[in-house]
């Protein structure tokens, strides 16, 4: 079993598909590429393809990560040369790197995600209003948001999950950059942060009005953020 870590972009028409559909699209592309996928045992064999962190429908992923396990070793270059042309429009393979089989599991390694958010807002959204909204968010002890779960909503405090946040109003456009806690514990979604900024700052708008980019996935090693991939 040979393990490869791939970075890819997700945009274009595929920006609008969800995590499970992405997994299916990726799996089919690997088969079209003729990659010798490693399969699980049993009646319903599945290839071992593991994504670092689900990307919400509509969010553009600039440096997403997936690991593919193969039965036979191939060079990084050969893998890239075969898979890249087999990917559908909207998925672009950026890099391929063989990783040690024993390396920590990709999903468990993800601690932080960075996002860029852009959008046009109402006329009352001035640079001063954004600045004071940002100060209010960063100064808040806790920020409660209602997170949709299976049946209904659950109230969560997202403040501790906001590692950094910057927001600027330039020529009527609101641009934000944020580093958020990510992964299996304490994950915060960028639209929740936008919602908090709009609400606390008294700014009009809907989180859905914005375009979201996930710019990177990171692990934390002795208090330092290290880019995965």
């Amino acid at each position: 079993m040979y393990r490869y870590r791939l970075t890819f972009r997700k945009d274009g028409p595929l920006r609008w598909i969800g995590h499970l559909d992405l997994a299916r699209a990726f799996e089919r592309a690997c088969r079209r590429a003729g990659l010798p996928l490693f399969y699980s045992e049993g009646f319903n064999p599945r290839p071992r393809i593991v994504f670092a962190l689900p990307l919400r429908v509509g969010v553009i992923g600039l440096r997403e990560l997936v690991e593919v396990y193969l039965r036979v070793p191939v060079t990084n270059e050969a893998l890239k040369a075969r898979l890249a042309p087999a990917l559908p429009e909207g998925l672009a393979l950026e890099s391929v790197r063989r990783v040690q089989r024993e390396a920590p599991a990709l999903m468990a390694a993800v601690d932080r995600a960075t996002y860029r958010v852009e959008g046009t807002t109402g006329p009352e959204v001035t640079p001063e209003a954004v600045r004071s909204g940002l100060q209010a968010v960063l100064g808040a002890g806790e920020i409660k948001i209602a997170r949709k779960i299976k049946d209904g909503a659950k109230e969560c405090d997202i403040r501790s999950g906001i590692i950094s946040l910057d927001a600027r109003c330039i020529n009527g456009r609101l641009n934000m950059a944020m580093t958020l806690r990510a992964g299996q514990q304490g994950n915060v979604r960028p639209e929740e942060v936008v919602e908090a900024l709009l609400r606390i700052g008294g700014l009009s708008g809907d989180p859905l009005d914005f375009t979201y980019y996930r710019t990177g996935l990171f692990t934390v090693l002795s208090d330092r953020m290290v880019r995965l991939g």
Partner: protein
Amino acid sequence: MLDVESLLRWVEKPGRYTGGELNAVKKNWEDTPVKLAFAFPDVYEVGMSHLGLQILYAVVNARADTLMERVFAPWPDMEALLRERQIPLFSLESHRPVKDFDILAFTLQYELTYTNVINMLELSGVNPLASERTGDAPLVIGGGPCAFNPEPLACFFDLFVIGEGEEVIHELLDAYHRGRRDGVKRGDLLSAAAAIPGVYVPSLYSVVYRPDGKFAAVEPHPGIPARVSKRIVKDADRIPIPVDPVIPTIETVHDRGVLEIFRGCTRGCRFCQAGIIYRPVREQELERLLAQGRALAKNTGYDEISLSSLSSVDYSQLLPLIDRLLSTFRPERVGVSLPSLRADAFSVEVARHLRQVRKSTLTFAPEAGTQRLRDVVNKEVTRDAMLDAAAAAFAAGWFRVKLYFMIGLPTETEGDIDGIALLAHEVLQVGERSGIPRNRLRLTVSTSCFIPKAHTPFQWEPLAHIEELKGKITRLRKQFKDRRVEFDWHDPHMSFLEAVFARGDRRLGQVLLEARKNGCRFDGWREYFSFSQWLKAFGRAGLDPAEYAYRRFDYRNALPWDHIDTGVNREFLVEEHQRAYRAEPTYDCRRGNCEACGVCTSLDLEPHLAEGETCVSL
């Protein structure tokens, strides 16, 4: 091009509207003279599971002079957004308004999509009434099984294509392209189209009504053929098998590759419309299927290839096909599946071959609960064969079995209903005796309501009364107390509506318009189906739906679909209908005994089995 992107973040499953899938064809708009939009009147996930779409997409886009793009019924959330922002319905490939296409081709698979057809026309800004469309409004054409009784939709369509579309579409596009180049007027174009075999132009046929306002006959205008004969692709080798289908980016209802192994089915179930309209059997040669099946798997990357047809276990070379496909597919764990199984031990043997890769539920369709009723409908399944099949399935390691039945069949009694429960319990007992642990054994019993369909031996039969159908469902529910049995059923109200349109006449067009005004669409979806709105629509149109659904036609009555010719002669249908009442079987002509249904003589061909086996018809 429309700004579709700005709509996507506001809707559920935006992948339904993006286009840009692998193998989607985006031709140069300006350089292609004829533009056709293929419209599927249901949601993307349903439409993209349809093989006919993939075939016609490949066939039409292979023409240099024509482009085909796709459009599906927008889900109500997207519909609301389109209406609110006054954005017209658009195609997936180029995001252009549907109204900008020359031809809008609807596939008609199911009666409860008819309001979606009208709604899609409205959302496109195309007048739903054919008589109101003039000049350069798109030509609205229809095809598919429901076109075999086109009358309820007659006022909305410029023309219908009866039967298989692969060949006639070329003739139609040639005529259209030529006509438009020569500046032929819309009406003359339609008259020219009516001369193409298999093309029905409803405006060139008048409906005659009796003094009481009821249907009397359909009469052609002078010079127009009295009957429109179905088209089929006679030569199996010429039936396209697409190996580069458009691969949906979101999960569809049937998310797999489809290999069509034959067309037609002559088992002769007396309720089955597909069995009549796709006659005769035309099997593909084994070598072609192997080549196409392998190419399909390689090109698509699907993990499952479905061997599709009306009755796949009947394919004469089935085991060699499965074994040889699986031997190539095994390294990449690609599975082979069949849509459903015959209820016999051979089928389970087949399933064992299939399961070398993937495991699933085994599905059988005994259709009726007693031998008498199975003989009535000519479903060649015996209790013993069913139980043998179940025993073989359990012995081979399956724990889950699904059984399909129909209720409301002609001559059905309470004893036949109880027979369904009895047979189901016998299957459970077989499972217990086979040593399947109690908590793992699962049986699903699924019932639908028998609906009399045009062109079948049961076309003269009424639908069972809604209350009677409900009573039968309740009776069955009471008998399925066992937790291991899951019982599901089709809503009799939906079946009622389906029955109305399946045997309806041209007057129903008014009802469809009224139903649309009442907000009806996605009627096949439980969450959107509103029976009360439909009843109001019938009331406003002054028509009684019960008269349509519960009508027993007399052999002397003219039928609203008499001018559509399936090639099967009326005498055969009458004979089959009478044999049903005598519970007499009619055998499959695959075995060489021609029952003289007439299709081979009228279409001038013979049933074709793989490897040169041919049955001789009378």
